[in-house]
């Protein structure tokens, strides 16, 4: 007796529903996708008044005071360094960087600047963007080859709490 072997039927899965859902998911993710700009931080340590009083016995670090004065509409009008040098030109921020760099070089510590501290005394109305520019100016310098040269690491604000 001869047995006939029937060919197996091809099983077809209906993909339409899955493809519909997949495309809807894709559209959802594309619509909600946002390119987020890279962000960075300037770190500021501000110990409380009681703690800073405890640390009075410790050797105080070198201090550079930088006063930022606001002009009209909160724009910057001048920068005064150590109550002696006044910067008013358009190049005041690079000039501030150079002054800080010279100070560190004079102290024989041009690279690190770890012990020297900068205290900012800032007019209330000065726009925050200028404050950030000034903090950036004392924090480091962009060299010709694009590398960053770190300068000051410790930054504090005057009149916030007691022992910044």
């Amino acid at each position, binding site marked *: 007796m001869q047995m006939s072997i029937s060919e197996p039927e091809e099983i077809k899965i209906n993909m339409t529903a899955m493809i519909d859902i997949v495309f809807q998911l894709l559209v959802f993710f594309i619509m909600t*996708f946002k390119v987020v700009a*890279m*962000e*960075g931080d300037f770190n*500021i340590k501000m110990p409380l008044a009681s703690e800073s009083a405890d640390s009075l016995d410790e050797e105080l670090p070198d201090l550079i005071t930088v006063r930022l004065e606001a002009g009209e509409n909160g724009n910057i009008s001048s920068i005064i360094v150590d109550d002696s040098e006044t910067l008013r030109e358009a190049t005041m921020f690079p000039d501030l960087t150079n002054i800080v760099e010279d100070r560190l070089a004079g102290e024989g510590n041009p690279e690190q600047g770890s012990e020297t501290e900068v205290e900012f005394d800032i007019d209330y109305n*000065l*726009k925050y963007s200028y404050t950030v520019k000034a903090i950036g100016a004392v924090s480091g310098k962009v060299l010709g080859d694009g590398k960053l040269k770190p300068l000051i690491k410790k930054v504090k604000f005057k009149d916030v*709490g007691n022992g910044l």
Partner: protein
Amino acid sequence: MRLFKKKSTEILEGDLTPMIDMTFQLIAFFMLLINFSEVDRAEEILLPSSVLAVPPEVRPDYQIILNLEPSGVVVFEGQKNGIDLLNPLLSRQVDAAAREGIRDPADIAVIIRSHEDTPTGIVQELMAKCQESELQSFSLRVKNQK
């Protein structure tokens, strides 16, 4: 003599496999990049930019992100509050950090995302308010220009 063209009765089916593969890869790409932490960011805050601000290498163990508008309104976890009303919220955060094992408020990172036109005095007021809750570590967040 009439000639009949033989009509093809087969159903034409394109091979959808590469398209589905590609679509799944796109979905995987967007799923990985989607940012669910939008609640920490306020869209209306335009950050100042700087080349020298360094992107944080390590995420702090516990962080509080405060978005500050030019008017002095603080956007925290999607809610708007005046600086004067922040104390209860900050205290709650300090307690939450303690429950996670961070007992010293000094170890909590306060990240200030302030609009570039905010008067600096208001930023300082915000810092002083945080100090009332014994918070001491601040990071001024800016847009990295690199």
